[in-house]
C-alpha cells in the first residue's frame, strides 16, 4: 500500500473576523496519492481554498489550524520557518485564480519566472533563463525569449495564467495546488489551460489538488473528486462515478443544476436556499435545511464521511437512499 503523498486529517481552520475567529473549515479528511489528481468542488464559502492553502500554510495572519497536514510523511503544521520555506520552494507549488493580481506589475515576466530558480535553487542567471524558455514552451507560450523581457500588463490573462503555471513548475514540485485557475478565463482559454495541466501531469507525474466550483471541469481533469459543503467534505468518488452516481443530496443537486445539451427541461432545477459557510452552519447536518431528503435526526446528528461502496459519503441517509446492488459492485469493479 503506497502511502499518500498528501494526507489531510481532521483539518479545522478558523480565520480572524472583526475581533473574533470564524470557522471556515469544519473538518476535512482527504488524501492525494503521488501522481493522482484530486478535485475539490464546492460553492463560494465552502472552504476549498483554505483547505488547499493549509498544505503550504498560506493562511491569513491570525488564522488557526488544527489537525494534521502530512506531506510525504512530514507534518507541515509543525515545520519551522526554514523548513516551511524549503517545503514551499520544492515540494508543493500553488497557482491562483487571478494571474494579474498575483504577478508583480513592476517586474518582467522573465524576472517572475526565474526568481524561484535564482533565489531558491541558486541557478545562475543564464541557466535560469534557459530553463524559463523551456518551461514557457512546455506550457505553450510562443516566442519565449521575447516574453522574458515583457511586463505582465502586456500579456493577456490566458497567457499570464500559463506563465504562472510555468513558474510553478520551475520548482519541480511534486504537488500542484490549483486554486480555481480557470475561473477568471473565458471558456476557450479554460479548455487550453486544462489541456496543458493534463498534459504536464502525465509527463511529469505531478499530483494535483484542483479547486473549482465546476463539477464538469473537475470530471474532465481529476481522477477523484471531493465535494465540499459548509467546510466539510460531503462526498468523495471517482470523477466519472460521481457524475453518474452521486450519493450525497448536495452533489445530486449540483449535477442536476448543470444544464446539459442532451436533455430537455422546462425549468432549470435549483437547490433551494443559499450556500452556507462553516461558521453559519446549523447543528447537525449542514445541508439539512436545503435537503429534500432531510428527516428529524438529520438536524440532530452531524454526519461523518463513511464509505458506501467505492465512495465516501457524509450523509445519515446515504445507505438508505442508495441501496447497494450487485450491479453497482460490478460497475465499480471496472474503475
Amino acid at each position, binding site marked *: 500500500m503506497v502511502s499518500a503523498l498528501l494526507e489531510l486529517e481532521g483539518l479545522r481552520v478558523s480565520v480572524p473576523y472583526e475581533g473574533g475567529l470564524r470557522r471556515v473549515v469544519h473538518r476535512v479528511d482527504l488524501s492525494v496519492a503521488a501522481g493522482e489528481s484530486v478535485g475539490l468542488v464546492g460553492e463560494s464559502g465552502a472552504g476549498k481554498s483554505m483547505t488547499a492553502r493549509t498544505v503550504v500554510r498560506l493562511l491569513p495572519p491570525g488564522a488557526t489550524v488544527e489537525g494534521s497536514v502530512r506531506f510525504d510523511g512530514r507534518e507541515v503544521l509543525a515545520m519551522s520557518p526554514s523548513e516551511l520555506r524549503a517545503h514551499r520552494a520544492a515540494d508543493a507549488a500553488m497557482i491562483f485564480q487571478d494571474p494579474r493580481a498575483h504577478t508583480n506589475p513592476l517586474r518582467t515576466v522573465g524576472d517572475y519566472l526565474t526568481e524561484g530558480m535564482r533565489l531558491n535553487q541558486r541557478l545562475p542567471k543564464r541557466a535560469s533563463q534557459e530553463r524559463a524558455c523551456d518551461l514557457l514552451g512546455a506550457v505553450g507560450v510562443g516566442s519565449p525569449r521575447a516574453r522574458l523581457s515583457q511586463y505582465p500588463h502586456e500579456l493577456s490573462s490566458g497567457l499570464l495564467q500559463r506563465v504562472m503555471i510555468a513558474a510553478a513548475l520551475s520548482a519541480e514540485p511534486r504537488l500542484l495546488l490549483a486554486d480555481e485557475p480557470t475561473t477568471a478565463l473565458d471558456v476557450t482559454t479554460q479548455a487550453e489551460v486544462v489541456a496543458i495541466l493534463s498534459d504536464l501531469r502525465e509527463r511529469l507525474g505531478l499530483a494535483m489538488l484542483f479547486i473549482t466550483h465546476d463539477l464538469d471541469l473537475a470530471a474532465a481533469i481529476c481522477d477523484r473528486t471531493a465535494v465540499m459543503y459548509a467546510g466539510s467534505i460531503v462526498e468523495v468518488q471517482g470523477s466519472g462515478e460521481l457524475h453518474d452516481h452521486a450519493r450525497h*443530496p448536495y452533489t*445530486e*443537486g449540483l449535477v*442536476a443544476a448543470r444544464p446539459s445539451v442532451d436533455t430537455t427541461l422546462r*425549468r432549470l*432545477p*435549483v*437547490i*433551494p436556499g*443559499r450556500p452556507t459557510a462553516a461558521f453559519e452552519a446549523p447543528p447537525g447536518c449542514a445541508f439539512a435545511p436545503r435537503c*429534500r431528503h432531510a428527516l428529524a435526526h438529520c438536524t440532530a446528528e452531524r454526519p461523518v464521511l463513511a464509505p458506501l461502496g467505492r465512495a465516501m459519503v457524509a450523509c445519515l441517509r446515504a445507505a438508505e437512499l442508495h441501496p447497494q446492488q450487485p450491479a453497482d459492485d460490478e460497475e465499480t469493479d471496472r474503475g
Partner: protein
Amino acid sequence: MSGVDLSPVEAGPIAKSPTWSRLRRRLGPLGLAALAAIGGLWLVALLAPVLPVADPTDVDLTSTFAPPSAGHPLGADSNGRDILARLVWGARTALLGPLVVTVVATAVGVLLAVVAAWRGGWFDSVISRVFDLLFGFPGILLALVVAAVVGAGFGAAVAALSVAFIPYIGRVTRAGALQQLRLPYVAALRVLGQSPTAICARHLVPNLGAIIVAQAALTFGYALVDLAALSYLGLGVDQATPDWGGIVAAGQADILSGYPQQSLYAGALIVLAVAAFSIVAERLAGRAHAWRRLW
C-alpha cells in the same frame, strides 16, 4: 433528479441604523474626541464675550510676564495682558476666518464641479484646467499677491484663500460626480423627466455628501494654518485684535527673553484645532487613498 423549486427567497427586514449611531461608529473613539475638541473650541469662541476672563486688550505694565495666578490663570504677556483672555478671544478670528473660507470654497467648488461634470465637453475641460491651475498656486502665495495689490488685511486674506481653496473641494467633487453620473439612477431620473438641477440638487450632491464634508473639514484645517501664518506674518488680522497666529508672532521676541508661554500656548491651540479637524476629516472619508491622484 431533484425537484423544481421556485418558491420566492425570503428576504429579511432591512434595518437602517439611525444616522447618529452610524456616524459614531465611523468616527470611532478618537474621532469622537476630536469632534468634542472642535465643539469645545467653537463654544469658547462663540461665548468669549460672556466667559469669565479678563479683557484681552487690558494693558497692565505692572504685571508683565506675571506667572499663573488667580487673576491670570495662564500668566500675562510682555504688556501685562492676560494670556488666557487673549487665547479665548483669539479663537474667534482663528475659527471664523477658516469657516468663511471653507463655506465659500465649498459652495463655489461644488457648484463648478457638478456643473462641469454634468455638462462635460469644453466646459469641463476649462473648469478642470482652472482647477489644476489654481491648485498649483499655493494659498499663501495667492494671499501675498493679493495683499500686495489691495493692501494687507483680514478680508483680503480670507478672500484670497477662499479662491485658492476652491480646487481642493472642486477636484474631489468633480471626480465623485463623474463617478455618480455613470450610475443607472441618474439615467433613470432623466427618463422620468426630472430637470438636471433637480437631479443634482436632490440626489447627486447629497450622495457626494460624505466626501464633500470630509474634504471641507480638511480644507478648514489648511485654511486655519494659512490664515494663522498670514497673521503671524502681520498680513492677516490687524495687530490690535487678538488672534492665535498674531499671538505667536507677538510672543516670539519673548521666547528669546525666556518667556515662551504666549507663543507656545497659542501654537498648541492651533495644533489642537488642525489635528482635530484632520482626524474628523479622515474618519469621515473612510479609507481614502490620499496619494492617488484624482484626475
